[in-house]
């Protein structure tokens, strides 16, 4: 009977899974992401100008002609923001995908094989986790020839370990579940167990790994490019900020060269975080129940306090 408590939470969890309703936070996040993706996909078609072209007098404030003004070099900021979305999101998501894939492979191998393989891989993972990422990224980026490929290499080398650790922990806990033992007893092969029994139960973990990896990748990319360690001949959010600071945007009061890009980075980051919260809530019914009841109480004007609330207006 001691385990009935676990059983109950499990049951509650499953109940939560049965009602797939997109939480408000996730919806907000998805809408923002959708807008940016649309911008990245069709943006360059609808953008008024070639983002590289020098189209007008430098540092024009936003106007009807140039929605977000012009840069210190006379390029159209709006067009550059759109073009930046395309390359930054692409690099961010590709790097996120690579980090998740590598992390998932390392984590899954370490978790399922155990023994020496696990010891070595987890050591590798932990070691790469404690080495500070950005300084390493700066050093790597400094040595590699500037370009998108190098940037991906840098981002992935500095960012895979976290995912590996998360995936390994999850695989370990799933591996100890009785359904895995049951599959072995049935006679299933190891590969079948990893890919058909364990991985399908990890989609939300992989999804949130992917999200955090992408957030990291976008942030680190912008940071490196801001330092001038990217390919400066491309238009990305990072190079936009680099040029803005290079053209002394703040000194000239040209906030419009900094704000749109900064805001875009922040919005995409926030949207991703919102989506991952919602994933958290979906997989962690306690969080969801708590916020649901808090809402129910708030609707009655009762603040959640230290004691069980007494609500008589109801039932």
């Amino acid at each position, binding site marked *: *009977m*001691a385990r*009935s*408590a676990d*059983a*109950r939470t499990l049951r*509650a969890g499953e*109940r*939560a899974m*049965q*009602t797939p*309703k997109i939480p408000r936070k996730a919806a907000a996040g998805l809408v923002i992401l959708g807008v940016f993706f649309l911008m990245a996909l069709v943006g360059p078609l609808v953008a008024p100008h070639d983002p590289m072209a020098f189209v007008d007098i430098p540092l024009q404030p936003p106007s009807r002609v140039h929605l977000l003004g012009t840069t210190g070099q006379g390029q159209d900021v709006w067009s550059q923001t759109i073009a930046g979305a395309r390359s930054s999101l692409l690099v961010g998501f590709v790097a996120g995908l690579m980090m998740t894939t590598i992390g998932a492979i390392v984590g899954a191998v370490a978790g399922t094989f155990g023994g020496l393989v696990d010891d070595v891989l987890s050591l590798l993972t932990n070691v790469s986790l404690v080495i500070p990422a950005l300084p390493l990224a700066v050093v790597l980026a400094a040595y590699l020839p500037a370009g998108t490929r190098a940037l991906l290499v840098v981002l992935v080398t500095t960012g895979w370990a976290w995912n590996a650790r998360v995936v390994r922990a999850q695989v370990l806990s799933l591996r100890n579940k009785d359904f895995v033992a049951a599959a072995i007893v049935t006679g299933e092969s190891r590969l079948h167990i990893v890919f058909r029994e364990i991985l399908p139960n990890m989609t939300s973990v992989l999804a949130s790994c992917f999200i955090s990896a992408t957030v990291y990748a976008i942030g680190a990319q912008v940071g490196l490019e801001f330092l001038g360690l990217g390919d400066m001949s491309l238009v990305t959010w990072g190079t936009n900020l680099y040029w803005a600071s290079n053209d002394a945007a703040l000194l000239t009061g040209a906030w419009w060269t900094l704000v749109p890009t900064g805001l875009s980075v922040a919005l995409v980051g926030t949207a991703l975080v919102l989506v991952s919260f919602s994933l958290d809530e979906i997989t962690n*019914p306690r969080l*969801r*129940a*708590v916020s*649901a*009841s*808090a809402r*129910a*109480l708030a609707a009655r004007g009762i603040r*959640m*306090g*230290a*004691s*069980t*609330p*007494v*609500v*008589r207006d*109801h*039932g």
Partner: protein
Amino acid sequence: MADVPLLAVEDLVVEYMTPSGPVRAVDAVSFVLARGEVLGLVGESGSGKSTVAQALARILGPPAMITAGRVLFEGSDVLAMHEDDLRRFRWRKMSFVLQSAMNALCPVLTIGEQIIDVLVTHERTSARAARERAAHLLELVGIDPARLTSHPHELSGGMRQRVGIALALALDPPLIVMDEPTTALDVVVQHEVLSKIAELKEKLGLSVLFITHDMSIVSQFATRIGVLYAGRLVEMAPTRELFRAPRHPYTKGLLGSFVSLHGPRRRLAGIPGSPPDLRRLPAGCAFRARCAEATARCATEAPVLRGIGEDHSTACHLVSP
């Protein structure tokens, strides 16, 4: 004062506000607990035993809320108390021994700190006096007072459970609620803990609300027993009476599900089916689907708890007084 029962629960309703709708875990439960009495509360997992217990002192965390009823302790309604009064009421008047001993003790504080905390908060005793009292309490439950400086993880399960009992005794409260105090333990250890409780009960004349799912345990403690099913009290009777003449089909089934170590072997009957989903309780009697004798009336009308004899009541349409 003498005619006011120690505890009277009237039509208590507790609901969990889950994202997929409210779960009515306790539904119109009423009972009375007299001074010096040990009231047993039994029922299978999920029947709402712990919810009832914790609602008494309003310590249920979110998403629980109490949506109806009264809890009268020595005549005053706990549900109407203000936060501060409630805090003073807790532990001084009603203390708890919770289901799982490991989780009921804070892992980062020492045993001593956790006992002294109560003494200092409620009695404003000096730290030294509190320490002495804590040591005395540990001795009372048969633990070396040197263990005051231990952390919970350094004690065995049985010891932790006894610490829980010592903690419950700290302020000499008129009522102790024991919520499955031994479920997490192996039989040998369980036996030891239960005998300690039995001993203290005799010695200190405690009033206890004793919650368990194990009929054999409660039979040795309780003066009266209430049976919970799907959040409702379905039968209530003095212990002897209940075991001798169970009236509700569920109680009968429950008693029939127990296998004995001794005596003749008979085929176990059990109760067919499984407990209902509290979120989608059918109309009428909650036990209907598992009841062999259910009638059309059971499907429409929910039975209420009615007296059917001296101190014996049950909630079943099939039982006439």
